[in-house]
């Protein structure tokens, strides 16, 4: 043991070098974390009735402030926090998108009009489903306002996830993003057992994917002696022979991320979780987790594993094909609209993967555009699902949607726009997104992949259009769901989702230019 340590004088101590952190660049993350802390304090000290309005102010102000900071940082390219955070074009673009989509999702979560007994969340998630306690809490109008701090932390994790430049911080961000979502998934007001089962499945499979990611990170560290993405890239080029540590490590990290993306064969959690979660949470999760996970996936592939492209591209090729085909084909057989959209989100992940596999600047730009288009469409679609109801809650069975277009033409039209966009019909954002992904893939030489993708989109178009036909060409019957009149929250979210979907389809040029300017990761 080092006995002299006890006799050391203060003057002998050499202080550590302070880390250099650009607080301006990580401000969006700090703002959301601060908002999370503040809203925990609100939960602690504000009386029950006052919590909801204060929470809403905290959340919306934080989201807008963070978005302003992202705008202020636009054009920055810097690596900060001792190399652990990389602020660059794709990172900032995804952060901005995440914040806007989260804003819409927060509006859906804040909705209190469509369900006569409160919002979409159980009054107290700790009560047993169907118990006297639950009834009493419902009757007294309790609201579980803890959803707001959880929401803030989840968003802050996503913001960190897309700019993390080493595997450790990426893992921490992954967990910060996921843990609140596991909780939120289990807090539905209606069909609570289904919701709790969804949360359980999401948690267990999410933990499994985290374990994959962590183990892969450890192996990559064993290979390169570092967890920094650029250093791993340097080591890959520096070491002539490729070791199995690198191969298995890279594969495990990618599996961990593909789990979050919902790519086949790591997609089993998606349908159950999408169906069971409270619909606003499903919308939030479907849109934002996809953005965040693809952001991290792209960064790992382009920054760290760029030198391995010839190894991962064939693997992702197969996964992309499987994802598109399985997602589209199984979606046809679904009779529940939330489950159908779950499989549709799997298929959409496959289309985005087509752009990822291209591994060119155009490929990256097209994947970014696809993510933006997909996120706004998805959040809008789930806003509509939250509104189509009967007395026992949401009417999610497809047969209940028959004739909805005659009963509530405006909402049905909005849903039609979303379905057309997801199917990739011209004049919607989905068409431009698919078109740019496919052109990028053809330019990169993946013609066969694009042929499969086009076939899969044709299959997918069938079930999207089937809903449209069902809504407008069937007579409304007694079973047809009623569209609840929403408050300004859902109205704004729905309108914003529809507007972005149409605008990106008609005048996509500004956004296309934006993604084209943001198509290089910083190294």
């Amino acid at each position: 043991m080092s006995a002299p340590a006890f006799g050391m004088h203060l003057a002998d101590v050499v202080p550590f070098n302070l880390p250099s952190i650009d607080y301006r660049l990580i401000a969006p993350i700090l703002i959301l974390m601060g908002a999370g802390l503040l809203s925990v304090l609100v939960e602690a000290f504000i009386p029950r009735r006052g919590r909801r309005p204060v929470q809403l102010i905290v959340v919306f102000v934080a989201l807008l402030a963070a978005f302003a900071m992202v705008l202020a940082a636009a054009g920055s390219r810097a690596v900060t926090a001792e190399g652990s955070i990389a602020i660059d074009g794709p990172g900032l673009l995804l952060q901005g998108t995440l914040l806007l989509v989260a804003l819409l999702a927060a509006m859906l979560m804040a909705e209190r009009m469509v369900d006569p007994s409160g919002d979409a969340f159980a009054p107290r998630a700790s009560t047993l489903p169907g118990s006297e306690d639950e009834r009493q809490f419902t009757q007294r109008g309790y609201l579980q306002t803890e959803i707001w701090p959880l929401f803030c932390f989840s968003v802050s994790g996503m913001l960190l996830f897309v700019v993390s430049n080493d595997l450790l911080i990426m893992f921490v961000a992954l967990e910060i993003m996921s843990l609140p979502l596991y909780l939120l998934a289990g807090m539905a007001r209606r069909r609570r057992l289904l919701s709790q089962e969804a949360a359980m499945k999401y948690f267990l499979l999410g933990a499994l994917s985290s374990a994959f990611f962590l183990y892969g990170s450890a192996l990559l560290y064993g290979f390169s002696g570092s967890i920094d993405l650029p250093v791993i890239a340097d080591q890959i080029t520096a070491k002539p022979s490729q070791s199995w540590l690198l191969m298995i490590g890279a594969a495990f990290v990618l599996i961990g991320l593909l789990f979050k993306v919902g790519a086949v064969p790591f997609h089993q959690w998606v349908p159950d979780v999408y169906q069971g979660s409270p619909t606003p949470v499903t919308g939030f999760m479907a849109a934002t987790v996809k953005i965040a996970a693809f952001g991290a996936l792209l960064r790992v592939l382009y920054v760290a594993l760029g030198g391995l492209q010839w190894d991962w591209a064939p693997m992702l090729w197969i996964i992309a094909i499987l994802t598109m085909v399985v997602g589209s084909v199984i979606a046809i057989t679904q009779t529940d609209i939330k489950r159908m959209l779950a499989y549709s989100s799997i298929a959409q992940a496959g289309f985005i993967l087509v752009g990822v596999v291209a591994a060119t600047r155009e490929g990256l730009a097209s994947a970014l555009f696809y993510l933006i288009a997909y996120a706004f469409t998805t959040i809008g679609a789930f806003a509509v699902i939250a509104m189509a109801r009967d007395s026992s809650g949401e009417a999610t069975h497809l047969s209940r949607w028959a004739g909805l277009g005659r009963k509530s033409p405006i909402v049905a039209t909005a849903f039609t726009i979303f379905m057309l966009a997801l199917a990739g019909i011209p004049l919607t954002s989905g068409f431009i997104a698919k078109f740019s992904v496919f052109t990028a893939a053809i330019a990169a030489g993946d013609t066969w992949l694009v042929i499969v993708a086009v076939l899969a989109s044709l299959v997918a178009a069938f079930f999207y259009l089937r809903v449209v036909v069902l809504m407008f060409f069937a007579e409304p019957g007694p079973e047809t769901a009623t569209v609840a009149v929403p408050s300004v929250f859902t109205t704004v979210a729905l309108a914003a989702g529809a507007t972005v979907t149409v605008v990106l389809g008609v005048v996509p040029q500004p956004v296309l230019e934006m993604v084209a300017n943001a198509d290089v990761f910083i190294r």
Partner: protein
Amino acid sequence: MNVYTPILVLGILAFGFALFSVTLAGFTGPKRYNRAKLAAYECGIEPTPQPVGGGRFAIKYYLTAMLFIVFDIEIVFLYPWAVAFDQLALFGLIEMVLFIIAVLVVYAYVWRRRGLEWD
């Protein structure tokens, strides 16, 4: 001598003493057994049969366990910080205070919402 040897010797002594005392009691004490004395308790409440599936504990124990773990992890970070306190200087103190405040916030939440009360 290794610096850990005294600890080891102390451990052996403690173990030996415990073993010695327990064995000694067996030799010196009087032994008169009957059925009642061999029961789980000589007097007082006899164990009642467990319900099928085993006794289950209330979920509130889980809350306590979770809270314990949260503050346990906090302590793990405190240890290297305390050891390297001099090198970390003021910046380290600020970092740790921020961290502790963050965890303290949730402590305030648990406390205010009566999570610490055994109700």
